[in-house]
């Protein structure tokens, strides 16, 4: 850990709620320790704003170790900032240079209404999962775990997709505001595994329908989602979703 300190100019999106107009506000911030995480830098700013009698910047965050998916903002045009495969909470200030200007905006999408400042409502993701992103088993009465044999490679492939943290960076980066990467990750995980077979077609149809209803756009292979995904979810999953959806539409009435 080599400690050094940088000075930054922050331009942060401030918006009272979804009904008001927002604007970028400029805040100079000096003496930022480069070992800080991006969110710790925002903490420092908020302490300063509080002491100055100003309203701190609202932003979502919780685990601060890159797994809960609650944090996220667009930094200089890139969801979760410049480091690849990294959530905003795991982005460290050593990625920036003294004198940089950082433009910090919320994850924008028609389906993600802004609540305040950098905080958005991603409950549309929950509704996509609710429409079929699970295996319908009740608690109890399941067979011994080792009666379901799954090749290691299949389990790994399912795990690659299951690693999605539901942060919404894919939607924020997509020119069409599509939730295809998110939805396809869950559909892939379950269609690859034997447990997911009984509901395979119905799941694909229901989740895609919900995705459309929630106001997300469609995929045009811009691949922006894959580029910003903190968990490196591949767009191969989108191809798989398309195949699943097509097969389900053709053969499920």
């Amino acid at each position, binding site marked *: 850990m080599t400690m050094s300190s940088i000075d930054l100019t922050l331009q942060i999106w401030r918006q009272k709620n979804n009904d008001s107009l927002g604007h970028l506000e400029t805040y100079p911030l000096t003496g930022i320790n480069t070992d800080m995480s991006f969110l710790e830098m925002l903490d420092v700013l908020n302490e300063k704003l509080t002491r100055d009698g100003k309203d701190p910047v609202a932003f979502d965050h919780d685990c601060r170790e890159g797994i809960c998916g609650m944090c996220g903002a667009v930094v200089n045009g890139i969801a979760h900032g410049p*480091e690849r495969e990294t959530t905003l909470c795991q982005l460290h200030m050593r990625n920036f240079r003294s004198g940089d200007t950082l433009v910090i905006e919320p994850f924008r999408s028609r389906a993600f209404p802004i609540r305040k400042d950098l905080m958005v409502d991603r409950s549309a993701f*929950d509704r996509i999962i609710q429409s079929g992103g*699970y*295996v319908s088993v009740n608690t109890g009465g399941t067979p011994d775990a080792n009666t379901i044999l799954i090749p*290691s490679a*299949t389990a790994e492939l399912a795990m690659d997709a299951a690693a999605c943290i539901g942060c919404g960076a894919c939607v924020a980066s997509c020119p069409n505001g599509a939730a295809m990467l998110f939805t396809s990750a869950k559909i892939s995980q379950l269609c690859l595994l034997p447990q997911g077979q009984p509901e395979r077609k119905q799941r694909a149809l229901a989740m895609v329908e919900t995705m459309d209803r929630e106001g997300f756009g469609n995929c045009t292979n811009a691949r922006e989602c894959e580029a910003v995904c903190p968990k490196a979810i591949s767009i191969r999953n989108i191809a798989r979703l398309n195949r699943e959806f097509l097969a389900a539409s053709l053969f499920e009435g």
Partner: protein
Amino acid sequence: MKLDARIPSGDLAQKWDNHRFASKLVNPANRRKFTIIVVGTGLAGASASATLAEQGYNVKTFCIQDSPRRAHSIAAQGGINAAKNYQNDGDSVLRLFYDTIKGGDFRAREANVYRLAQVSGNIIDQCVAQGVPFAREYGGTLANRSFGGAQVSRTFYARGQTGQQLLLGAYGALSRQIHSGKVTMFNRREMMDLVVVDGRARGITVRNLMTGELESHAADAVVLATGGYGNVYFLSTNAMASNVTAAWRACKHGAGFANPCFVQIHPTCIPVHGDYQSKLTLMSESLRNDGRVWVPARQGDQRPPASIPEAERDYYLEQKYPSFGNLVPRDVASRNAKEQCDAGKGVGGTGLAVYLDFAEAIRRDGEATILKKYGNLFQMYEKITAANPLNEPMMIYPAVHYTMGGLWVDYDLMTTIPGLFALGECNFSDHGANRLGASALMQGLADGYFIIATSIAGYIGASSLQPVAVTAPAFDQSRKNVAERIHRLLRNSMQGPAGKVTVDEIHKQLGRLLWDNCGMARNKAGLESALEQLPAIRDQFWNDVYIPGNATDINQSLERAGRVADFLEFAEVMIRDALAREESCGCHLREESQTAENEAKRDDANYSHVSVWEYKGEGEPPVMHKEPLAFDNVTPSQRSYK
């Protein structure tokens, strides 16, 4: 306060069966007449919500985050234990029970722990049926690893993201019930108060974090699954929003709080590097399977690790504990790291770190093998510290990680308030004075999937519950009390920040006080001094804290302030509990209670009990009650890892 654990009769192995047989049931057609509130959507809360809804109850579920999928169970890395004995290495329900009781240093209830071991296998079956992508062998069977000092391989895992995958499984089951209309989900709500009517838990008051509105919700039973209170130390591995508020408010209504001083300090965390630090990051202790812990043999040796020859390194765990070596339990590893640093042998910029070295493992197994096992952890470490563990040893230091203490519950997981249940980390029941690795996930899911439904049916079946509406006076009063407290918190907000302190400044003060005096090692003088210093911090908070904004909007400073206000009250119970327990046990060393070799000395003659604290009102000291622990099936032994 009456403490009746209501442990079922019969042999240890028969108790759970006997209990399920003796418990009342609720007819499936009648279940829809009852509403259950579940607060929290981690492993315990999500699995309980789904299971109760599947059985036909109406469930109202609340979470503090924007989605139930974000609860902090998601961050658990290493794995989940189960007595499947898939590896044919001598594991059994009895052995998992024994390891858990022994690991907890004989401060947990035999019956509860045995039941946990009994249902552990069902959890794995359930999760696999849900499509949780556990690691597999090439033949397609489930893979296991040995974890946290266990001498059998009983830990199931999904890369370093086991908690995430299990939580997403439970979240899927919960989502399915939301879709079916059996669960009504309330996101971004914080429980502010419990509502007790005629001596029974009948509802909650929550604050809508988006609008500031105080809402009342009534039910026939209330289930708290609100996690642990590690954030009382300010710095911990917990998520930022983890708090004690729900449990503490329940305590103020008469729920006993058990063993609040039992806090686990995890040995393999990334060291603190600055005042601005907001949280500590844990790395799975599976790292200790291949990493060797060492410090320079000479005090104050500032050379980079590569320049320190083998002969001048002190592999202190391997030397002190030849049979367990680097795999000693968490408390032993943490305490020894602190001892080395206190003796001036700590490394890194702050001197508050020890090395965890993979060089030998890399030489033995090759980089590829090591990366396959720990790649994501190495990546995480490098991201935070900008150092690559393939090239230089990691630096680690202990951090607050898990709280074994929690709301006192009986065998049914019911608190001392009838109709109020506590599940998962929020209760005290299974881990005694120290939790074994990969057992938190097991307990959360055991409570939620396989235990609470029996308890709820038993409670409802045996009680004649009158309908309660949110128009009842108790709900009005509760909202009024909560509103007044919020008003008090915002008292200074009109005057501006001049001469005032921020919420975080107070929280950091409290954290330092507890870390210094009520951490891994405690003594009477330190605890008494902490108890003396606490009221001044509390007064400063209530007099001088400045919270910007108001209560009718999104106000994250106000949210934090409410939690810190409760931590400030709760800390007193923690310190008093630590003072009263004049023995070393589990995770903590009471400095006055040591063996001749400076190891922890338990005192079974005087402290083989659960300490349960009763809240007595503002300004009154809490009162301690004891639940004696009986060991009929195991003989408490002094732990030795030498």
